């Protein structure tokens, strides 16, 4: 009898101990996306109000570009037509190009759909869609820390490139010509059925303005 009783209380204790572990898991489970693993799923509304999920683009190569039009590094690549040029080339090759804005309301770079459309038009941008991520969940899931911050996802949904737009971290558009542009390089290698030669780089740019 005594044994059975103590087993019951021990079980109770263990169950309660287990409950504590669950909360902690929830807090700690924010590992960002990793190259070579499945890219995190997301569903976001674009600048025209349409909803897009990563799953919608299964079978296609997807490029993600984190943006903030007020960031000097974004201006560097848009001002020199580098970003739009890459977008035109990619979408021309049936690649899906999604621009993502994770600036939180009240933070620099935060836009509504109308403003995003205006920015697109002014920049003559050629992305597939401009996605709004004001809560930052998608940005955090990918571990996007800078604008620009670039990701390439292959047709099977595996992340193949994460990092900087190019190899010269500077705000000077003069450097674009001599820098290696990582996304076109990765896209070309994927299209040729090769492994991505530079799969991970340290991104440079402005910090993504997540909600604090």
């Amino acid at each position, binding site marked *: 009898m005594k044994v059975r009783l103590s087993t019951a209380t021990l079980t109770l204790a263990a169950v309660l101990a287990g409950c504590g572990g669950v909360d902690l898991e929830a807090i700690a489970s924010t590992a960002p996306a990793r190259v070579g693993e499945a890219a995190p799923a997301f569903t976001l509304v674009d600048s025209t109000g349409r909803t897009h999920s990563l799953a919608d683009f299964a079978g296609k190569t997807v490029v993600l570009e984190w943006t903030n039009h007020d960031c000097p590094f974004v201006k560097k690549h848009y001002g020199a037509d580098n970003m739009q040029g890459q977008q035109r080339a990619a979408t021309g090759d049936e690649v899906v190009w999604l621009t993502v804005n994770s600036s939180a309301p009240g933070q620099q770079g935060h836009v509504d759909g109308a403003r995003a459309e205006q920015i697109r038009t002014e920049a003559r941008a050629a992305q597939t869609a401009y996605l709004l991520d004001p809560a930052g969940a998608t940005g955090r899931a990918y571990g996007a820390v800078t604008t620009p911050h670039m990701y390439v996802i292959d047709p099977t949904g595996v992340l193949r490139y994460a990092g900087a737009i190019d190899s010269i971290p500077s705000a000077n558009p003069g450097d674009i010509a001599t820098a290696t542009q990582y996304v076109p390089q990765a896209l070309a290698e994927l299209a040729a059925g090769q492994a991505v030669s530079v799969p991970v780089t340290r991104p440079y740019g*402005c910090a993504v303005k997540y909600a604090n």
Partner: protein
Amino acid sequence: MDTPRCNEVASKAGALRCVSRSRALLALLAVLLAPAAARPASEPVRTDHLDSRLVAQATAAVPGQTLALGLLLEHDPHWHTYWRNPGDSGLPTQLELELPEGVVAGPIEWPHPERFELADIVNFGYGGRRLLPVTVTVPADYAASSLPIRASASWLICEVECIPGEAGYAFELPVAASAQVEPRWADDFAAARAALPQPATDSLAIAEGSDAIALALSGLDGGATPVHWRWFPETPEVFANGALPQWQRTPDGWQARWRKSEYFTRLPAEVALVAVDGARTAWRFPARLDASLVPVAGTEQPDIATGDTSALGLLPALLLALLGGLVLNLMPCVFPVLSMKAMSALEAADDRGELRRHGLWYTAGVVATFLLLAGALLALRAGGEQLGWGFQLQEPRFVAVVALLLFAMALSFSGVWALGGRFVGAGQRLTEGRGARAAFFTGALAVVVASPCTAPFMGTALGWALVQPTAAALTVFAALGLGLAAPMLLLGFAPALARALPRPGPWMEGFRQLLAFPLYLTVVWLLWVYGEQTSALGMAWLLVALTALAFALWLLGRRPAMRSPGFRRVATAAAAAALAIAIALPMSASAPPPATAGAAAAGEDGTEPWSEQRLAELRATGRPVLVNMTAAWCITCLANERIALATDTVRQALAARNVAYLKGDWTRSDPAITGYLARYGRTGVPLYVLYPPDGGAPRVLPQLLTASGVADAVLALPPAPPQETAP
């Protein structure tokens, strides 16, 4: 990284750079046209949110000597520029000097940075007024009468927004046989030098794990506590900027794991860390690769269940601790104390003021004891002891005292001795009765008996707290205490609750006697723990002590009824002698380490005692291993063993996959086990780690086991290579 150049590209920034270069030329012209007075500095340049200028430490350049220059940055409030490793975003400040032929400039000598955090993005840089020094060597044969210095600098300055900036500087220093220190910048140079990392003489070894870098620091003097230092990764893309190293004391120094950078590809040939110690001295630690660093296998992020505890913020940790404390009230550990508390609450049920006062004193007792224990733990750990939470129960003498105390309480509840006698032991007056002191010490007792439950329950939060600065750690423990005390506190402040208490009456005598039994059971448990820690003989001596205590208390209880003063005197003396025996016996009991006995017992059911070496050997042979870290005083551990590990289901699964079963016993303090727990972010038991065959990443099993859960995890392992020793 490229250096800024005035190039021909007709772009905005390029043009801007050329403009600033021509501005620099204008400044140089102004210098040349100015009277020949010494000007050991350029004109300040104002750019967005920054005043910058190039300054010299001395009033003249001396051929054959070095000359200290500095880029003096005065940031607007809240704005910052970046260190050589800027962190998650940002760019390091760059300085390019143009000097006459033969005059050579060194690189920027970077003072240690500050940490800037924005949401989850962590950067390293400088705010306020900072000087970045550069050393210039003037050759002995430098013949000109002056030294023209031109420079251009570029940076990224950020608050929340970021603005790239650049400027050109020019000035001319007279050349002389000797030079004086320029007083205007003396403080800036002094501050920069003071913040410059000194080369550390201590040795830092690193090795790569799958998710983390293992670090081993040796040669530090005994009092050094790298836990409390501020660490900065000088080499980018190796360490995660947002994470911090989790240091643990080892026999040869300190070890830590530091989560890998998201951009980690491979360890570069040269890796360096900068640390700012408690005396605000900065040190630069060049790291040496050491593939033999043992804990690498174990330093891998085991799984998300243990998580990266450094990611846990103070607020979530406090909240968790508060909740944890509350739930602790439902743990069997605390039941006996709660029954004491319930008794006094019942007695005071019709006096709200008294209930409230009791609640407050009880809370004070709980919180103070948590702080005392946590403070002692932190102090001992800082002194190099390998201890975890629940450490006090690793001390057999402590266990004996708690057993004696609870036994005395139980005897009192049973009516063997009455309350309030004049010669009654201090322990009784401390925890019995209605006084403030009683409430306070009941709280203290609650913490002591609750601590074995606390360890598994609060694992990660306590693990987090124990590597934080002392103030943060103690705050978490205080929150834990508040949670534990909350129900009693609430009783005094929620009239409805107090009204719900049953009225006092004669039934309470029976109820009190009933409540003695959980206390007796707790004493039985403590006796067993004491036996595990010492020996069967030790346990027998503690039983003698309990009997002596019972005798003393009985005698004291009888004393008022004795008619002869002589008898009373004898009774007092006899009781005092018995009490002395009760206390002295367990104190003097020798406590042989139970290692040999434990090993023999463990061998019977196919388990082996854990050791770091045995684990490494087994893994080297490619065999899967299950490690079970347990302690006699850990109730969750015992439950898991009974419910899951000792079942046939699990035994068969282990045999099917030829899994070696290693059991570590932490009942008594064991630095090796404490270090092993720390690698998984734990400060206490239980911990179950399953290592797959062929050196794969280990998996941490939940703290609550089920037989089928363990069996599934084991059977999910790939089959081990054939073993000669396989059954």
